[in-house]
């Protein structure tokens, strides 16, 4: 059984797209649709997760992801703890598990974890108390499932039918947890044509076999007739690693310009997980252009995270209740007299 699911097949942890069904991913997207309109309310929050406590455990720095997780939790009326692990007890020598035990002792219900090491969120989920859900907010090069789901949500808003789409993912696929999760989500949702495009040094050697994608080393070829062009962030530290000669050359070969974008379908959308490097992987005129949905991704990220968090916190409730409670026995005969007679 998938360790992310409870006995009823409901989401208990959200660690990776791998092993999740199309039905469950679609449920997440549909639930997120409901949360989008919460932002239209004068009071931009719902009372759903009142009394729940969410701890953001960011072992790796992040602004956008942490902020949108925090906003998502607050718009669900949960209480949020932001732990800056770098300056907290772990820096004083406390082990990770001791930190977790302390947070559990404070009755936290959910850990949102980002870590530079692949597998960190799985490790924490495996060691967390049964009443705690773990959401992976990015672990090493492994997975970033909520980013993938907000990307799927943004795509579906523009292109409602996944099956016929051609999606081109451009850039540093080798080091990208976003790419790995996005490819998995696209394939689970039935997208037939997924392409990865980048320099040979930044694409996995066996991408075609291992990931089931088409591989292109030339942007102009790979982008042709694409419905979705997803740019990946070029991490500056890759320059030191000898993967690339220079940012300037990278932009010349793999930067998304208006000219290159014209090779994609005329109604193609341009996506980027952020933060963008203008003039490195994407030209400003494209990033700010009519086909760009980059800021929509940020907005929808909150609704998608609200969906995932409330589904996992709700499944907890069902676990707590599965023993059978007085509530379930209600509706017997004791208070039937309250009902008006016919």
């Amino acid at each position, binding site marked *: 059984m998938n360790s992310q699911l409870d006995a009823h097949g*409901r989401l208990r942890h959200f660690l990776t797209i791998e092993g999740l069904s199309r039905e469950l991913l679609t*449920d997440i997207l*549909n*639930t997120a*649709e*409901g*949360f*989008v*309109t*919460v932002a*239209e*309310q*004068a*009071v931009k*929050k*719902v*009372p*759903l*997760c009142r*009394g729940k406590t969410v701890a953001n455990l960011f072992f790796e720095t992040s602004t956008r992801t942490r902020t949108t997780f925090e906003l998502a939790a607050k718009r669900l009326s949960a209480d949020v703890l932001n732990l800056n692990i770098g300056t907290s007890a772990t820096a004083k020598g406390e082990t990770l598990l001791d930190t977790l035990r302390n947070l559990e002792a404070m009755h936290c219900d959910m850990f949102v974890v980002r870590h530079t090491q692949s597998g960190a969120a799985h490790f924490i989920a495996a060691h967390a108390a049964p009443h705690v859900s773990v959401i992976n907010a990015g672990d090493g090069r492994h997975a970033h499932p909520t980013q993938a789901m907000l990307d799927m949500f943004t795509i579906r808003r523009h292109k409602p039918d996944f099956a016929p789409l051609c999606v081109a993912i451009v850039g540093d696929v080798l080091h990208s947890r976003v790419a790995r999760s996005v490819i998995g989500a696209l394939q689970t949702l039935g997208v037939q044509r997924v392409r990865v495009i980048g320099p040979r040094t930044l694409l996995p050697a066996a991408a075609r076999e291992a990931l089931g994608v088409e591989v292109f080393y030339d942007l102009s070829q790979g982008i042709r007739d694409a419905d979705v062009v997803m740019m990946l962030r070029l991490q500056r530290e890759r320059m030191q690693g000898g993967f690339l000669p220079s940012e300037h050359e990278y932009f010349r070969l793999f930067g998304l310009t208006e000219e290159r974008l014209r090779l994609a379908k005329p109604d193609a959308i341009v996506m980027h997980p952020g933060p963008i490097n203008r003039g490195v992987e994407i030209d400003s005129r494209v990033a700010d252009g009519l086909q760009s949905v980059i800021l929509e991704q940020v907005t929808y990220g909150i609704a998608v995270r609200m969906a995932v968090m*409330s*589904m996992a*916190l*709700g*499944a*907890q*409730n*069902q676990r707590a*209740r599965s023993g059978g*409670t007085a*509530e379930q026995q209600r*509706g017997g005969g004791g208070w*039937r007299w*309250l*009902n*008006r*007679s*016919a």
Partner: protein
Amino acid sequence: MTMAAAPWVDASALSEAMETMASQLRRHYAGQGMDTPLMVGIHTGGVWVAQRLHALLQLPEPLGTLDIAFYRDDFTRIGLNPVVRPSSLPVSPEGRHVLLVDDVLYTGRTVRAALNQIFDYARPASVCLVALVDRGGRELPIEPQITGLRVDLPLHRHIKLTGPDPLVLVIHPDTPR
């Protein structure tokens, strides 16, 4: 030992009930000197009823719809409703007379949730509760102003509006709540 569900009220009887409700509504807001009301239906059955009433009353503004999944009081018992539809209030209820429409009024908990949700959008001038069926069994101090049909059902029985076309009321003998 579930018996087959039997239609309790068929489509033509329901149309008749809704026409009566529409004329009651006209009298209700004309008698009180209210401005044109804003109609809001609760998903799913309440929206179907509201669509019919909205057409019968020829209300000029679009119908609002609420899915109260995020305002329910049983999240801590049963978790999130597996099917959530987006709520949509195309016209703000701020300062307006709102006609809140549901199909079956039972415990009153759904209406409590809907009221909280409406007030998170804006502050209406008033809310009038319109229910196609009042089946009794209230657990909260909530009463409808306009009701199409009344029936007193034992707790273990379940009444459901099926639709959207045709609309039929069905009573299930022993479906748990």
